[in-house]
C-alpha cells in the first residue's frame, strides 16, 4: 500500500477536477458521491500507509522534479513515515466524516458543487503539506490550505463579514507564511538543500546556535499564523463565518494543527534551539490561557469553540515546546476528534434553528435535540478533560511533561484546564439546559439532524471517548508508533508524582464543571452580576483584549493612510507633478522666448550684434 501512497493525493485531485468542471451539471447526488468517495478512498490508502510504515524510519517517493535553478532543486516527492502517516490518517479520516456530514448540512446550498470542490481541494493541499518531503512542498500545502480556508470562510461571500473574514484569514496567514518562507530561505542558504532528511542529517554538523534559533523562530512564526497562536491568532474567531463543517474540519481538526505538525516534523532543529523552545512553550501556554479567558464571555457558540481551538492549540505548542512531540501529536489527534465533534454538534444546532448561534438566544435544546446534546456533552467532557475521556489523557500528558520542564508552565496549563471546563460547560448548560430563549417559530421548527449528519457525529463521539486510550500512560501507543521519527528521549521514570498530577487535573476539570453548573444552572443570574461587578475585566475579555483594535490602529490604518497619501497626494502631485512641472516649465520657457520675438527688425538686428560682439570677443580674448 505504501507504494501507492500517491493515490492519496490523486483521489482528492480527481474529485476537485470532476466537481470543478462538471459539478453544476451532474447533480448534487453525484457531486457528493464523487467528493465523499474520493476522500473515503484516500482515507483507506492512508490507513494502509499507516499500517505499512509502522516502525519504519520513513520512505521517500519522488514523483517529479519541480523547480531547478542552479543548486536550488526541489523535488515533488512524498515522505512516508509514521508521523506523516498518522497525520494523513487523521486528516483523511476526519475529513471523510465531515464530508459526509456536509452532504446533509449543505444540502440546500446553491453552490453545492463548489463547496465540495473546495473541500476536496483542501484535503489535497493538506495532504501535500503532510506528505511533503521538503520545506518548499510543505510550503505549497501550507499556502494551499490557506487558500482553501480563505475560499471556505468566504464561501457565503454575499455577506460582507464572511468576505472580510476570509480576507483577514488569508492576509494574517500570509504574515506568518512570510516568516516560514524566510525560514526556508535561511535553511537553503545554510544547507543548500530543502529536503527534510538531508537537512536533519546535516544539521548537527553545520548549525550554529544563532542560525538554528533564527531558523526555528522563523518557522515558528509560520506556525503562529497557521495555528492561530499569539500574536497572529486574530483570524480564527472570524473564520467562523464559514460553514460549520468547514470550521470543524479546517479550523479545528486539521489545518490549524499544521503548525504543530510542522514543529514536530522539525523537532531535530527545534531540539537544537533551546531558546526557541522556550518561546514556543511560553507562547503556547500564554495562548492557551488568554484564549480560554476570552472563551469565558463569548456568546457565539462557534466562537467559543474557536477560542477553545486556539487554546487547545496552545496546549499542543506547550507540548512541543517542552519537547513532548508525541504528546503534542497525541493531543492533536484527540483534539481533532472531539473538537470536530463539538463543531458538528454546533452545526447541528444551527441546522435545527435556522442558523441561530448566539447561546443567549438558545437554551433548553436537550429536549428537542437529544442526540446532538449527547454528542456535545461527550465532546465537552473530552475537551474539559473529564477522566476517561480522550482529552483527559492527552492533556494530562502535556501537563505532566510541562511540569517536568517548568512548574510555571504547568500551573498555567492547569489554570487553563479549569477555565476550559468552565467555558465549555457554560456553553453546554446555556445552550441545552434551562428554558429556551429562542424565537417561538424557530423553536417549533427545531428538529434533529438527518442520519447523514448524525452518524458522523456519533462516530466522532465514540472516537472522542476511546481515542484517548491509544495514548494511555504506560501503554503509549502513539508514542511508540512515532518513536522512529520522534525519539521519546530520556524521560524521568514516572513515579507517584505523575499520578498525583493526574489526580490534580482530574479534580480541576471536575471542579470547573461544577463551577459552571453552579453559575449557569443553579444561580443563572450570577454571571450577569459578576460581569457588572467586574465590568472593566468583562469588557476587556469580551472585546478580546482589544487586539483587533490594536492591529487596526497600529498596522492597518497607518498603512492605509500611507497608501492614501501616496495614491491621492504624493504620486499624482509630487512624483507626477515633477514630471508635468518639467513639461510645463519647458512650455513657459517657450512662451518666454516667443515674447523675445517682438516682430521688430531692429531688435533682431540687436540680437545679431550681441552675437557678433560675444563671438568676436570670445575669439579675440581667448
Amino acid at each position, binding site marked *: 500500500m505504501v507504494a501507492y501512497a500517491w493515490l492519496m493525493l490523486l483521489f482528492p485531485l480527481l474529485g476537485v477536477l470532476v466537481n470543478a468542471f462538471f459539478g453544476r451539471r451532474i447533480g448534487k447526488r453525484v457531486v457528493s458521491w464523487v467528493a465523499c468517495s474520493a476522500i473515503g478512498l484516500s482515507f483507506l490508502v492512508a490507513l494502509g500507509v499507516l499500517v505499512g510504515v509502522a516502525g519504519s524510519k520513513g520512505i521517500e517517493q519522488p514523483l517529479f522534479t519541480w523547480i531547478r535553478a542552479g543548486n536550488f532543486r526541489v523535488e515533488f516527492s512524498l515522505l512516508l513515515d509514521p508521523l506523516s502517516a498518522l497525520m494523513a490518517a487523521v486528516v483523511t479520516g476526519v475529513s471523510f466524516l465531515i464530508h459526509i456530514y456536509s452532504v446533509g448540512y449543505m444540502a440546500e446550498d446553491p453552490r453545492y458543487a463548489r463547496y465540495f470542490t473546495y473541500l476536496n481541494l483542501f484535503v489535497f493541499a493538506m495532504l501535500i503539506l503532510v506528505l511533503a518531503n521538503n520545506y518548499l512542498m510543505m510550503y505549497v500545502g501550507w499556502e494551499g490550505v490557506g487558500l482553501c480556508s480563505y475560499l471556505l470562510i468566504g464561501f457565503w461571500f454575499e455577506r460582507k463579514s464572511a468576505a472580510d473574514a476570509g480576507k483577514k484569514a488569508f492576509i494574517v496567514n500570509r504574515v506568518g507564511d512570510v516568516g516560514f518562507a524566510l525560514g526556508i530561505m535561511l535553511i537553503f542558504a545554510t544547507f543548500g538543500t530543502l529536503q527534510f532528511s538531508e537537512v536533519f542529517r546535516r544539521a548537527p554538523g553545520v548549525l550554529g546556535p544563532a542560525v538554528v534559533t533564527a531558523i526555528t523562530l522563523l518557522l515558528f512564526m509560520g506556525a503562529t499564523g497557521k495555528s492561530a497562536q499569539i500574536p497572529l491568532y486574530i483570524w480564527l474567531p472570524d473564520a467562523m463565518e464559514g460553514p460549520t463543517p468547514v470550521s470543524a474540519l479546517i479550523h479545528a481538526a486539521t489545518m490549524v494543527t499544521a503548525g504543530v505538525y510542522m514543529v514536530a516534523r522539525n523537532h531535530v532543529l527545534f531540539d537544537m534551539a533551546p531558546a526557541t523552545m522556550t518561546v514556543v512553550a511560553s507562547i503556547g501556554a500564554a495562548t492557551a490561557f488568554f484564549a480560554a479567558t476570552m472563551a469565558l464571555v463569548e456568546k457565539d457558540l462557534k466562537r467559543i469553540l474557536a477560542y477553545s481551538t486556539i487554546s487547545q492549540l496552545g496546549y499542543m505548542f506547550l507540548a512541543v515546546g517542552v519537547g513532548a512531540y508525541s504528546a503534542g501529536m497525541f493531543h492533536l489527534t484527540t483534539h481533532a476528534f472531539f473538537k470536530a465533534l463539538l463543531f458538528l454538534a454546533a452545526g447541528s444546532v444551527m441546522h435545527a434553528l435556522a442558523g441561530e448561534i448566539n447561546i443567549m438566544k438558545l437554551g433548553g435544546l436537550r429536549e428537542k435535540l437529544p442526540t446532538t446534546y449527547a454528542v456535545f456533552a461527550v465532546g465537552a467532557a473530552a475537551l474539559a478533560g473529564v477522566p476517561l475521556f480522550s482529552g483527559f489523557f492527552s492533556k494530562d500528558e502535556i501537563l505532566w511533561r510541562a511540569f517536568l520542564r517548568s512548574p510555571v508552565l504547568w500551573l498555567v496549563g492547569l489554570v487553563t484546564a479549569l477555565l476550559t471546563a468552565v467555558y465549555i460547560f457554560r456553553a453546554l448548560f446555556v445552550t441545552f439546559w434551562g428554558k429556551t430563549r429562542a424565537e417561538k417559530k424557530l423553536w417549533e421548527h427545531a428538529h434533529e439532524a438527518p442520519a447523514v449528519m448524525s452518524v458522523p457525529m456519533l462516530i466522532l463521539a465514540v472516537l472522542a471517548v476511546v481515542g484517548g486510550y491509544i495514548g494511555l500512560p504506560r501503554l503509549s501507543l502513539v508514542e511508540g508508533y512515532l518513536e522512529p521519527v520522534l525519539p521519546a528521549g530520556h524521560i524521568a521514570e514516572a513515579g507517584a508524582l505523575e499520578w498525583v498530577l493526574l489526580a490534580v487535573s482530574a479534580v480541576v476539570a471536575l471542579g470547573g464543571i461544577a463551577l459552571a453548573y453552579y453559575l449557569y444552572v443553579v444561580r443563572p443570574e450570577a454571571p450577569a452580576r459578576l460581569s457588572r461587578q467586574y465590568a472593566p475585566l468583562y469588557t476587556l475579555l469580551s472585546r478580546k483584549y482589544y487586539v483587533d483594535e490594536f492591529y487596526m490602529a497600529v498596522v492597518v490604518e497607518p498603512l492605509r493612510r500611507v497608501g492614501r497619501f501616496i495614491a491621492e497626494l504624493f504620486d499624482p502631485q509630487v512624483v507626477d507633478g515633477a514630471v508635468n512641472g518639467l513639461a510645463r516649465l519647458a512650455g513657459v520657457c517657450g512662451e518666454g522666448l*516667443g*515674447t523675445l*520675438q*517682438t*516682430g*521688430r*527688425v*531692429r531688435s533682431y*538686428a*540687436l540680437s545679431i*550684434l550681441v552675437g557678433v560682439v560675444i563671438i568676436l570677443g570670445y575669439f579675440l580674448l581667448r
Partner: protein
Amino acid sequence: MDAIRYLLILSAVLFTIGAAGVLLRRNALVIFMCIEIMLNAVNLTFIALSRQLQSLDGQIFVFMVMAVAAAEVAIGLGIIVSIFRHRATTDVDDVSLLKG
C-alpha cells in the same frame, strides 16, 4: 601709427557707425543707407589692404561688392517701396505683423 592701422581704424569706425545706425533708426530707407555705409567701410578696408599687400585681389573684391550693392539696392528699394504701397509707412517698427 602706421597708415594701414589708421585706415583700418577709420573703416572700423565707419562700419560701427553704420551698424549703430541699423539699430538706432526706424526708417527702412535710413537703415538700408546704414548698411551701405557698412559695405563701404569694408570696401575701404579692402582697398587699403590691397595697397598694403600689393595685390589686386582686394580691389577686385571691391568691384564685386559694388555689383552686389547695386543688386541689393534694386531689390531692397523694391521691397521697401512695395511695403510702403501697402502700409504707407517706412517705419520698420510698424511692420511687425509676424511675431511671437
